[in-house]
């Protein structure tokens, strides 16, 4: 990636311009044209560097309930349990991690009741009792901004 592309990536991660011609604003800062900015962004998207440009929301402030959950899944049931968990549209992240609690997922729903119901359903369908719910007690930092250097 060349320097202009890196500068552009660093620039548009936070404070993307909220004005009529946002790409023109970025163009002026980078000393290139508006069309060039749009083309570079298109290129960075198709090569998989940029996922999306838009808003990242605080689910709580939208009235939603969210939590992290961990479950102990027997190795031979991973695919089946993952399929069940991932079928919920509010499950946004799901990872296998190296611990006896080996499957970690986040779930967001319009109410706490819906989350409880979903988890109860997992317990019933999978016969797994070891599932813990880890909602945020206190938030100290959330800032997914990466400094793109080399």
């Amino acid at each position, binding site marked *: 990636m060349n320097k202009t592309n890196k500068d552009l990536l660093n620039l548009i991660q936070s404070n993307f311009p*909220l004005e*009529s011609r946002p790409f023109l604003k970025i163009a002026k800062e980078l000393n290139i044209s508006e069309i060039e900015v749009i083309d570079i962004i298109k290129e960075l998207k198709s090569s998989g*560097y940029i996922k999306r440009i838009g808003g990242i929301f605080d689910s709580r402030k939208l009235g*939603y309930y969210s939590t992290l959950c961990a479950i102990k899944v027997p190795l031979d049931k991973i695919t089946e349990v993952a399929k069940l968990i991932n079928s919920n549209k509010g499950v946004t992240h799901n*990872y296998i*991690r190296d611990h006896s609690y080996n499957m970690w997922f986040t779930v967001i729903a319009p109410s706490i009741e819906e989350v409880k119901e979903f988890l109860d359903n997992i317990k019933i369908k999978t016969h797994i009792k070891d599932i813990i719910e880890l909602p*945020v007690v206190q938030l100290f930092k959330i800032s997914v901004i990466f400094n793109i250097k080399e």
Partner: protein
Amino acid sequence: MLSCLDKKIIRKIQEDLPLVPKPYAEIAQELGITEKELIYKIKGFCDEGIIRRFGSILNHRNVGYKANAMVVWIVPEDKIKEVSKIMISFPQVSHCYQRPIFPDWPYNIFTMVHAKTQQECEKVVKEIASDVKIYDYNMLYSALELKKVSMKYFMQE
């Protein structure tokens, strides 16, 4: 409370901004409002904290951050405040939360640590540990990604 229009706007800006010279004008037109109104609304959501960040979401694995560990710590209750303050000062720490503990889960502080390599990640974590003087920690790398999507709000209404 969010109005019907607020929800319509959120439904649009949780998707991808159109790559045209006047992207807000395009969205505004679809919503039947003016460009000015839309920008004013988005700014309002940012000020209220409804929008945490407005900008590009990168694929961090593709931009070179391939080692991403969930590092969990056992921090005494009375030390949480000062320890978390030090932890969040590290630029490699993207998230830092307190979460509940369970009989078989003693870790109460969660941090996400990002680095280019696992060695680099471990080096950062050791540095954090010695700075906060907490040595009861565990690094849980993601061995496999089973799902990663962005949440779509207000889709059933």
